[in-house]
Each structure stands twice: as C-alpha cells, then as structure tokens.
C-alpha cells in the first residue's frame, strides 16, 4: 500500500494537529528546561548550545579565510591570526564536533530506538550538559580576555614555556568538556546494555545505536588520557615538573604520544555517530534493510578497536623510530578497511531499493562522496613515505576537513533534517532545504578541494602569510567558504521558520522502521504509552507495511 504513494505521508492537513500532550508542552517555564531529566529536552538544550558554538567557530573560520585572501598578513597581526585558528580548532572540535551528533541526536533517539523511557542516568545526562556549558563559557571567556595561541594541539614546550596567553584556562575548559563527553559516553553504554525493550537483541538494534556504542567506548576510554595530558601541561607550566622539558630530563614527544592517544580516537568519536546517521537515512529513503547489517555493525566496533592503536601516525617525521613508523603505518592501513566496507555497504543498500531524494538523502549522498575523498586522502597520510611530503601542510587541513566537515557536518545536517519532524512535530520546507544541501556541497568542495593542491605544492598549515604563488588557490578557497557560509545559514533560518509554519508531520512521515517513528511526534515525555516489544529485525519494511495494514483495518472496524 505504501509502495505506490510517495514516502512523505503527511496526515490530512484539515484534521492534523500537534498532539496536545508532548514532551515540549508538558511543563513550561525556563526552570522546567534547566532542571529537566528528560533526555529529549536535554538534547534540545544541547542542540541550541552546539549550534551557537558552531557559529562562533564558523565566524572564526571566516576570519581565517579572509586573512588568507592575500599573501601578506594584513587583516590582523600574526599573533591574532594564531589565536583565531587556535580558537577555531578548540571550539569546533571540543564544543561542536565531539558532542554534535551524540549529545543531540544520540541523546534524543537512543532511548527511543531501544524502546526505553529515558537514558539510564538522567541526572548525569543533565550534569554533562552543565559541564559542557561551563566549559564552553570558560572557553569563550578566555577568548575574550586574550585568547590562546598554542594551536588546538597544545604542543609542548610551546604551550608550557613559550607562550604567555591563557593556556591554563583554555586547558581547564577542555578538561571540563572532556568530563561532559565521558558522562555522555558512560550513559549511552549503560543504557544500551540495560534499557533495551523486550525483544531488542543486540542484532536488532539500529546501526545508529551500534555506532554510538562504539563511539561511547572511545569517549570513556580515550578522554581520561587527554585529561591527564592537560593536567601535566598545567603542572609543567606552573611548577615546572619537567615531564616534557628536555633540560630536566623530560621528553617533549611524550606529550604528543599522550595527546594523540586521545585525539586520534577522537576523530572516530566524531565520525562514528555520523556514520550511524547515514545508515538510518540511506535505509529509510531507499526503503531497504542496510546491506550487510552485521558487517556495518562490526565495522563500527573494528574502527573503535583499531582506532586506539594508530596514534603515532601523527608523528612519522618527529623522530619516533623507523620501526614504530612501520607498525603504525600498517595499523593505519587496517583501520581504513572498515571505512571502505561501510561505504560499499551503503552504496549497495541502494541496489534494488525504491529511492527518493528528500534533503536528508541528499546530505547522505554528499557525505558518501566527501567521506570517500577524505578517507582516501587519509591513506595518503598513513602511507609513511608520502606522509613525509604531505604532513603539516594544507593537504592535511583539507583531509580532515573533508572527513570532519564534509563527513560529519553533512551527517549532522542529514540527521537534523531526518529527525526534525519527530523532534518538533513539523516538517521543514523541502525545496529550500534541498537547495541548501546542494549549496553546501558546492561551497564545501570549492573551499577545501584547492587546499589539497596547496598542500601538495607544499604550503604549510597555520601560516598567517604565504608566498604569493599560492594566492590563486587560496582565493578559490575563500570564495568557496562564503558560499559554504550561506549553505549553513539557510537551515538555521528555515528550520526556525518551520517551528511555527512548517506542515504538521504526523507520526511517521518517512515511513521509517525505527521504534522512534512508531510513536507520536513530538513524543510524550515517557516516549511510549506502553512498553514496545521488538518482534522483528531492524529495517524490516515488510513488518511496517503489515503493521499499517492492521491499523487501518482496526480503524475501519471501529469506525464501522
């Protein structure tokens, strides 16, 4: 029955209305938000706050691109430029990318997908938002009062002995944000283990949950190492304990080992939840079970496990022994394989599907293309020989922006559009959002593709001024960044508009199979009126059709 109609099955507009009782309308007043234990409300708090930090980070990125429009350092002093790119990195990584999908979409939908009423530890969930906000405000405060210019990597001995900017307060902000991330990860792990509805076995969970499970393990095991590294930097800077100081017998490389032991897994913390979103979106809009469900689920876990053993590939030219390079290069190649598996499995999910091209699907296609480029160029850097030439140049900048912005941000936007009807009860305007997706894709490529060429030509990263022959490609990049900026502003505008004027969405506008779609939109505070029972596999579209046929019958008989 659903096969002949279009996917979007909005309820009849004349009779449609938002359910009176839902998690948004249940309580009113600012305190009902600030003291809430509801995972959905906390997700909304997170959504608002990370959007705020994203635009601050984005404005800083705009300043960087403006400065690089000309070869000379003329828009701002080099010190200012150094502070700007440092704060851009810190805000985007610790205050946007790490919490982006997990803290918003994961927070909102993991309990619903599992058929649970809430996360296992609602108060810890709220605490993690307060820690995040505290850390974020502290970071902004340090930015206002002089900033920090160590680069987001806090490399010693630059950060411990040579800069006199706000290293300690910024470090404290990152330290606190780390605990927010640990609490979120812990909460997810406990919830996934303990709160699954009857019948929800591990291999009936949506891949979104699998991806978050893998990312949560990384958060819980990796983040403490970052905390340790930051504490050591602080102690070295204040009382000179000499762990990293070669004149006291310390080893400056040790810091990088500690830092990257977290920060490499951190890129998987950032990308895995995005991959989870893509699995949901591609399955829904091609109306097919994800091709090779088990392979995709285990590839997330494989990425998490291998991800812990590749950190030294950031240090191939830094005087680690040639043989460690050999080992870490090999392990890096192994971690690339599960990513390749995912890409091909998503592609073959389309095979014999019945595909429609709503906005989330367009973003998901964008993700697949850009992530393929980002992943392949990662292999250029994991190959020890070519790493010598390409590392520390714009090639690496382009690479991680393809993965983080092209991959993660596309996935985040795909997810936001996909679940917007569920979160708000209203549809976003389809045409303009499709346009925004296309604009983002074009702007993104124009911004970051030239940077691959710049890097191959040898332009170093973190340069406020550069030799004039690199200008042309930089102009392309800056032009692209302005298009990209438009692509990011549009969703804010029309999504806000849709809160009031969007069409009523109904329970399941996409005809998706996840448990979160089998309840009202916006959901009740308790998520479900009765405990759901999972009696089918994930992504079982035939079950969904039967279910709806049954419902229709029931309506007809009760009306008759």
């Amino acid at each position, binding site marked *: 029955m659903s*096969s*002949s109609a279009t996917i979007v099955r909005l309820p009849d507009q004349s009779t449609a209305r938002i359910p009176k009782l839902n998690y948004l309308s249940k309580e009113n007043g600012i305190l009902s938000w600030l003291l809430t234990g509801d995972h959905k409300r906390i997700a909304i708090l997170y959504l608002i706050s990370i959007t705020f930090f994203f635009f601050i980070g984005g404005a800083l990125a705009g300043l960087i691109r403006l400065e690089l429009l000309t070869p000379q350092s003329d828009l701002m002093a*080099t010190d200012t430029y*150094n502070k700007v790119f440092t704060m851009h990195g810190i805000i985007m990584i610790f205050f946007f990318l790490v919490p982006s999908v997990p803290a918003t979409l994961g927070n909102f939908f993991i309990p619903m997908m599992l058929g649970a009423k809430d996360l296992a530890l609602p108060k810890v969930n709220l605490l993690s938002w307060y820690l995040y906000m505290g850390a974020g405000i502290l970071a902004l405060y340090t930015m206002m009062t002089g900033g920090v210019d160590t680069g987001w*990597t806090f490399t010693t*001995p*630059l950060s411990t*002995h*040579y800069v006199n900017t706000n290293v300690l307060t910024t470090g404290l902000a990152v330290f606190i944000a780390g605990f927010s991330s640990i609490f979120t990860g812990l909460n997810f792990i406990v919830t996934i283990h303990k709160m699954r509805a009857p019948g929800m076995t591990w291999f009936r969970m949506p891949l979104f949950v699998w991806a978050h499970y893998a990312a949560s393990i990384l958060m819980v095991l990796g983040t403490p190492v970052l905390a340790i590294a930051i504490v050591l930097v602080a102690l070295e800077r204040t009382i000179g304990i000499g762990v990293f100081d070669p*004149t006291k017998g310390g080893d*400056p490389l040790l810091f990088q080992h500690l830092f990257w032991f977290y920060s490499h897994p951190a890129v998987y913390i950032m990308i895995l939840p995005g991959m989870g979103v893509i699995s949901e979106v591609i399955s829904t809009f*091609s109306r*097919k*079970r994800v*091709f*090779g469900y088990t392979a995709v689920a285990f590839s997330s876990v494989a990425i998490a496990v291998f991800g812990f053993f590749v950190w030294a590939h950031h240090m*191939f*030219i*830094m*005087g680690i022994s040639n043989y460690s*390079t050999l080992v870490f*290069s090999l392990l890096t*190649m*192994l971690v*690339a394989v599960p990513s*390749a*598996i995912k890409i091909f*499995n998503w*592609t*073959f999910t*389309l*095979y*014999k*599907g*019945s*595909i*429609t091209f709503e906005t989330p699907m367009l973003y998901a296609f964008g993700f*697949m*293309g850009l992530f393929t*480029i980002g992943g*392949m160029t990662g*292999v*250029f850097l*994991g*190959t*020890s*020989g*070519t790493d*010598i*030439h390409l590392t*520390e*140049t714009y090639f690496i900048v382009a690479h991680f922006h393809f993965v983080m912005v092209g991959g993660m941000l596309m996935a985040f936007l795909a997810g936001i559009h996909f679940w917007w009807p569920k979160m708000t009860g209203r549809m976003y305007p389809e045409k303009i959002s499709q346009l925004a997706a296309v604009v983002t894709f074009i702007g993104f490529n124009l911004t970051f593709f030239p940077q691959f060429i710049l890097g191959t*030509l*040898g332009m*170093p*990263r*973190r340069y406020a*001024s550069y*030799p004039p022959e690199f200008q042309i*490609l930089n102009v392309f990049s800056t032009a692209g960044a302005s298009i990209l900026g438009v692509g990011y502003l549009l969703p804010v505008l029309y999504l806000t508009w849709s809160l009031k004027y969007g069409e009523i969405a109904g329970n399941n506008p996409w005809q998706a199979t996840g448990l979160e779609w089998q309840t009202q939109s916006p959901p009740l505070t308790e998520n479900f009126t009765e405990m759901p029972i999972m009696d089918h596999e994930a992504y079982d579209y035939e079950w969904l059709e039967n279910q709806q046929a049954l419902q229709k019958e029931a309506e007809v008989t009760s009306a008759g």
Partner: protein
Amino acid sequence: MSHISPVIWQFLVKWLTNSALFPPEASRLAPQMDALLFFLILVSLIGLTIVVLLVVSFSILYSKKRHPVAVQVEGSTLLEATWTIIPLGLFLVMFVWGALIYFRVFTPPANAMNIYVVGKQWMWKAEHPGGQHEINSLHVPMGKAVQLTLISQDVFHSFSIPAFRVKREAIPGRYTTVWFEATVPGTYHLFCTQYCGTNHSQMIGDVVVMTPEDYRKWLAESTSGMSLAQNGERLFASLSCAACHNARPDARGPSLANVYGSKLTLSNGGAVTADDAYLREAILNPSQHVTQGYAPIMPTYQGQISEEGVIALLEYIKNLNSDYRVQQTLTTTDLLPESEGKAAPAAQKSAGQGPATQGKVKP
C-alpha cells in the same frame, strides 16, 4: 564594475598558466615520491569513480518512479569479501611502497656530507663544517648526498623543502637527521611547517642548489675564517674543558681523542656508543653520563652553551677522531675551495679570510 572583469580575467589566466599540481622535482627522491603519489591518486580516483558511478546508476535505476517496490536483499558474503579484500590488498601495497621510501629518506648514506641546522624562534641557522653560517637559507651542492642534523633550541620546528619532498622535525634536546641529493640547480622554498608561535609563518627561507663549481666559490666567499671544529676548539679552551680532558696520565677527565663513535662503559655499568646524542647529553648533563673510572666532578653546561656551541664542540670532538677526519676529507674534497683542498678543518688554519657573510637571504 568595469574593473572587476579584467581582474577576474587576469586571475584565471594566471591560474591556468601556473596551475602546477606538484612542486618542482629537484632531488633524487622527488620522482620516486611522486610515482607513489600518482599511484595513490590513481587508486583514489578509481575508487571514487566506482562509488559515484554506483550511487548515480542505482539512483537512476531504482528511483521510486522506476522501481516503486523495493526488493529486500540481505547482503552478500561474496560481494562483501570482495570489497574487504581488494581495498586491504591495495592498502598493503601502499604500505610497503611507502615504507620503502620512508626508510630511504631517513637512512642517510655513509658518504653524505653533514650540515647542522638549528631551529629557533623564528629562524633557521645552518652551520657548515667549513665554518660557513647561514640564516634562513641553505646552500647545497648538486649531485651530492647532503645530510642535515637538526636540533631545536626552543620549541618544535619542522624543516621542510617541498621541492626535495623531505621534511623533518627539529626537536628540542634531540638530534634528528634527514638527507637528500639535489639534482636541479635553483632556488627553492624552505618552510617551517610545525607551528612554533608568533612568527611561525616568517620562519621561511631559501634552499639554493648550486653546481659544484658555484658551490665551491660560495664556500670560499662565505667562510668566516674558522671552521666549525676550530670554533669548537676555541670554545673548548674558553670553557676550560682542557683542564681535565687533556689526555695527560693524571687527567681528571677521559681523553676525548677517538672517543666519537666508540663504545664506552659508564660508571653505572651501562654501555653506550658515543654518538652525537650521547656527547651532547654528556656535555649538558654530565652527572648522568660519567665514564667508568672517573669521578663525577664535571659541572653541568646546561643553559651555558647554545645549541650552536654544542654543535661546534661536537664537531671538534669528532675531528679528534682520525677516522672521522679521513672520512670528512673523502666526502668533501671535491667541494672545498682549492686553498683548503684536503683540509681536516681542525688540524689546519684556514687560508680564506673573507668577511663573514652571514644569512645571505635571496630576494
């Protein structure tokens, strides 16, 4: 508005005429590195094309209009094995190929001529064995293996020459090495690629590759009158090192003749090879490195000698080693100015007395 379009036009013309995708290939290694890069680009393009083609054709073939009812397919072990094993095989090829190049870059040949480079906020200082100093520039002969021994006086820096496809971190408190053999005369970029503070982007310079004749001329013109080892000898005297390290029977410190490269037994029972790193540590932090049979009486020189000073001392100590002198002579004979023909720099007063031309920065 009329002025905008010529600007754009000029811009495009400039771009098209300068649209190099690779920097110039100016070292023996560069073509090898580029071959691997081309292979990587090729594999990526093929991979990307496959993904895009599949996505586009599936999107057309199985769009809702053409294919209203989805057919559920569980997966396929064969297909999944295919796209696990083929990428894995390709990645392993890249790994081996890359490792071969990596080992080549960081394993200098025995006959390479050595130049010391000290990185500091925010300049590169090169110290040639003949006593030539340069700031933010590096002159090297064509067709000769050159080894750089890098160290940083403060924070991490990174010495990058894109045209040679080499890059190496200069680390505080530790020597690192890299080598290259330049093949094409010319002037190339030298960058610091590791973020090092305020003027990171001004820590740049030129690498000048010269024909052997030009290089010989440059050496003669740029000498400061004293070789690096002679500088070291003077420093050795002024720091009163000879009060103990004087090779007399009753000396309080071990003789330094022929110590470089030898195996030493320490007072704590450990055995070490007296290489650059050990000698540096033994000067700066002697109490940890006392040779067996001697009392730990040497004061620390931490903070009293600059990295350049340590390098000069090292070069002096190395030159007390007759094998090293012979090796140096063999390596550099054809490059030294006529007057210094077969000089073991420490053993002989230099003849060239030109003024010191430090830091010749090219326009």
